[in-house]
């Protein structure tokens, strides 16, 4: 016997279900279908899944290999939780010549794949082929993607992989931001332009230029905190500064670094639970000093140093802080793998031993957010998940 449960209660129940179940239940009835694809439900579902339990760790390896695993089991349980491989959606070469976009085959060759940013279950990736970069908005949980229109840059422009992706709550829109370096032919000098793609308009626009004085650090992906993307930059003389791009007003601002560090350290920005973090690691060497972790508890307020530690990066690139456990352990992405640093033991442990080359890693949650507001514009990538 079925008790009659009103639809609004059904909606409450549905918003607590995982994405896979929701995709199944779309065919239960017409009212269920319209609930599950409604923008309000997608937002409510996102909110209900924002807790730590549902977070996954996304790892990008060589040759565009994407894998993910549960963040919670990684940090608190097994050192090698099950990794799920994702099939990256690569548009066919034909698409570029304009000949139709709905095929689901994948070509077997492509150049460097990088993550522009990750937000609310949507991943923005860049695929470079023959020195041309394609950008794709992808939701791996529902296996839909959308190839963004070409930037249409002149030959004098170059991309340095300084970019970002985030959600603008003011206009309820997802935006991808790319910084484009323009070398002027008649010697006017260097200009850094900002191009923004918005999911609603489905087009690129040019907005305010990156401030001319600080020199951005590349490559880097903007860290989204409080509706703004944050980039690290160097001041003209010495010192670092944080440049922020407000996604709503599309204007730039600047923030001071917490403390002046000389150039023998590598600095990365991170965001955990909506808080901006400034992560300093020493370069390995005989004079290596300890590392520091600063947080900005109240956005726009002052920095607080919360941790000082002795950890040296195990690879040549800057470690990126991914998460912090309840016991104060730091989960980091090094280019040789994922490591967990325990300040209690004073050293770090390699997790996920089968992964030895990490180009990038992000925390992400599964969601129903569509790559395009018009469902017909999304392509499906349908290969089964490989285990």
């Amino acid at each position, binding site marked *: 016997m079925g008790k009659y449960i009103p639809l609004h209660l059904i909606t409450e129940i549905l918003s607590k279900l995982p994405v896979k*179940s929701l995709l199944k239940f779309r065919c239960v*009835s017409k009212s269920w279908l319209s609930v599950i694809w409604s923008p309000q439900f997608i937002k409510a579902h996102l909110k209900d899944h924002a807790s730590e339990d549902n977070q996954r760790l996304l790892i990008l390896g060589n040759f565009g290999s994407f894998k993910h695993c549960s963040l919670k089991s990684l940090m608190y349980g097994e050192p090698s939780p099950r990794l799920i491989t994702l099939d990256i959606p690569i548009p066919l070469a034909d698409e570029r010549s304009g000949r139709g976009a709905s095929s689901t085959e994948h070509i077997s060759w492509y150049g460097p794949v990088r993550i522009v940013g990750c937000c609310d279950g949507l991943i923005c990736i860049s695929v470079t082929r023959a020195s041309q970069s394609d950008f794709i908005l992808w939701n791996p949980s529902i296996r839909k993607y959308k190839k963004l229109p070409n930037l249409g840059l002149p030959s004098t422009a170059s991309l340095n992989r300084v970019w970002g992706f985030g959600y603008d709550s003011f206009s309820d829109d997802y935006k991808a931001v790319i910084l484009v370096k323009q070398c002027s032919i008649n010697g006017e000098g260097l200009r850094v332009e900002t191009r923004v793609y918005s999911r609603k308009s489905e087009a690129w626009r040019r907005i305010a230029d990156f401030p001319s004085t600080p020199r951005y650090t590349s490559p880097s992906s903007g860290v989204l905190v409080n509706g703004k993307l944050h980039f690290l930059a160097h001041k003209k003389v010495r010192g670092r500064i944080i440049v922020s791009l407000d996604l709503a007003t599309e204007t730039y601002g600047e923030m001071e670094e917490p403390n002046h560090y000389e150039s023998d350290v590598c600095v990365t920005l991170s965001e*955990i*639970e909506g808080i901006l973090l400034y992560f300093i690691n020493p370069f390995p060497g005989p004079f290596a000093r300890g590392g520091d972790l600063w947080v900005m508890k109240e956005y726009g307020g002052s920095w607080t140093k919360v941790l000082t530690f002795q950890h040296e990066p195990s690879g040549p690139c800057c470690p990126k802080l991914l998460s*912090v456990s*309840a016991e*104060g352990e730091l989960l980091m992405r090094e280019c040789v793998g994922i490591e967990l640093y325990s*300040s209690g033991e004073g050293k770090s442990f390699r997790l996920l031993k089968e992964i030895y080359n990490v180009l990038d890693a992000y925390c992400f949650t599964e969601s129903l957010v569509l790559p395009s507001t018009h469902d017909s514009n999304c392509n499906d990538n349908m290969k089964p998940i490989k285990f």
Partner: protein
Amino acid sequence: MLYAIFGVQTFLQRDLELRNLSLFNRRKGFSYLFQKSLLFPFSISFFLSQGFIYLFLLSSRKSSSPAAIMSSSSPKMITLQSSDGETFEVEEAVAMESRTIKHMIEDDCANSSIPIPNVTSNTLTKVIEYCKKHVEAKSDEEGLKSFDAEFMKIDKDTLYDLLMASNYLDIKSLLDLGCQTVADKIKGKNPEEIRKEFGIKNDFTPEEEEEIRKESPWVFD
């Protein structure tokens, strides 16, 4: 209950912020950072000071807990009447867990007894049991978690009745708990089982249903 672990540097030379170094104090998904001195690794005094701070915080939390109100008079009682005529006397604080009842009390409509027409006595008993526990043990997060898990070991009819009652009475935590329990029970089912479960008629034609299934074939394996 929120608990914070501090590392107190007893041999500090620099002046780092001592109070409230706990970061990310949240009810769920919490993470903490504790400070470690660069010059002096773990030492016994660190452990002792850590334990002391923990106990201090624990006691200060308890004394400032709003649940332990020092009132000389006995708590005000509210009478609730279920749909089948049974009356229940509960403390005002317990009754106020329901926002519906809370508004009634605040609007001064609760003079004699409050009728709850949509809820039977069996269900109301369970609701009161839940609210009582959540008021009494407000700060004991672990205890509440295990209580909730036990509380939800009920049959389907009771569960659905509780869901409807908590929705009518506007008790968000019970509603969330009930919905999560139902969600966990149904997430592995296929669409036909779902339709049976909730008494839903399939208003798709076989072709329409096939269209939808084709969009995401991998979830049906």
